[in-house]
C-alpha cells in the first residue's frame, strides 16, 4: 500500500455537497461513491442525483433518514440507473419518485460488498485503493464542532449515526488518518472533509464499510 493515497488526486471525486436540513447523508454517501466508481471506470465525472435516491429508494425514509445498506440493496436489486443531478436536482426534502425511461443516460451498480473491518483497517485501505472510495457509517455527534486536525477522541464505535465517503488516507505523519468526505458543505471541517485517525476504529469508521462495483 502507498503511504498516502487520495482518489481526489485522480480527479474522480465530485465536489463536496450540502445536504442542508435533509437527513439524507445515507444517500449522499452512496451516490458519491457511485459517481467515483464510474469515473474510475473511465466515465466522465458527473454529479448524479441524490434526490432520486431520496425519493425512490424503498425501505428508507428520504430526508427523515435511511440506511446505506438498504440504498445499496435497492440499487442492486432493481438495477436502477441514477440519472444526472441536473435531470433530478436536489430539493432538500422528500418527494414522489420520478421515473425515467430506460433509454435515459444513467449509472447503475454491478454489485457491492459490505463488511466490518474493525481491527483490519489495512484490508480496508486495500479495498479503497483497489476499487474506489468507500461508504462508511460513523458516530459524528462531536463532528458538530469540528474545524480541522485529526479526530482521535470524543466519539464512539457501535453508535453509528452518519454516513460518509472515505476517499483516501495519509500515513506519512506521526498519526495516520483517513480522509473523509462529508456532505455538510465546503465551509465545514477541512474544505468539507474530516481527518479521522486510522488503526483504532475511531468513531466506528471501520465497522460498517461498503465497496461499490460497477
Amino acid at each position, binding site marked *: 500500500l502507498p503511504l498516502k493515497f487520495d482518489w481526489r488526486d485522480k480527479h474522480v471525486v465530485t465536489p463536496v455537497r450540502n*445536504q442542508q*436540513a435533509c*437527513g*439524507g*447523508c*445515507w444517500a449522499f*454517501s452512496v451516490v458519491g461513491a457511485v459517481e467515483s466508481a464510474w469515473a474510475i471506470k473511465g466515465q466522465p465525472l458527473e454529479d448524479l442525483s441524490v434526490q432520486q435516491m431520496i425519493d425512490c429508494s424503498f425501505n428508507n*425514509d428520504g*430526508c*427523515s*433518514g*435511511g*440506511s*446505506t*445498506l*438498504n440504498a445499496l440493496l435497492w440499487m442492486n436489486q432493481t438495477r436502477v440507473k441514477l440519472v444526472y443531478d441536473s435531470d433530478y436536482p436536489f430539493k432538500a426534502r422528500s418527494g414522489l419518485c420520478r421515473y425515467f425511461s430506460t433509454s435515459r443516460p444513467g449509472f447503475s451498480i454491478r454489485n457491492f460488498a*459490505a*463488511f*466490518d*473491518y*474493525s481491527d*483490519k483497517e489495512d*484490508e*480496508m485501505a486495500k479495498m479503497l485503493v483497489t476499487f474506489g472510495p468507500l461508504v462508511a*457509517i460513523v458516530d*459524528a*455527534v*462531536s463532528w*458538530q*464542532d*469540528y*474545524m*480541522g*486536525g*485529526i*479526530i*482521535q*477522541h*470524543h466519539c464512539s464505535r457501535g*453508535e*453509528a*449515526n*452518519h*454516513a460518509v465517503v472515505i476517499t483516501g488516507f495519509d500515513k506519512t*505523519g*506521526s*498519526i495516520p488518518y483517513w480522509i473523509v468526505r462529508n456532505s*455538510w*458543505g465546503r*465551509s*465545514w471541517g477541512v474544505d468539507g472533509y474530516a*481527518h479521522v485517525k486510522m488503526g483504532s476504529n475511531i468513531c466506528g469508521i471501520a*465497522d*460498517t*464499510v*461498503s465497496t461499490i462495483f460497477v
Partner: protein
Amino acid sequence: TWQRNPEREAAAFRESLSRQRYLNSFFSVENSSAFYGINQFSYLYPEEFKAIYLRSRSSRFPRHPAEVQMSLLNVS
C-alpha cells in the same frame, strides 16, 4: 419546519462555546489533534443537530474474511 427562536439559538450558541472549550482541552500540537470551534451548527443544541443531520441507520455487517490463499493450477 421548526420556528427559529433567537433566544434559544443564543443559549445553544453559549452551550456550544463551553462544549468546544472542553473538546479543545484534548488538543495537542504534536499529534495534530482535532480542534473544535464556531461553525454553521453552533446555534443548534446537540439533540437538534442529531435530529436533523445524523439520520443514518446503522446495520451490522459480517466481519471481513481473512485473506484466502488459492493455489493456481496449470500456471508455470
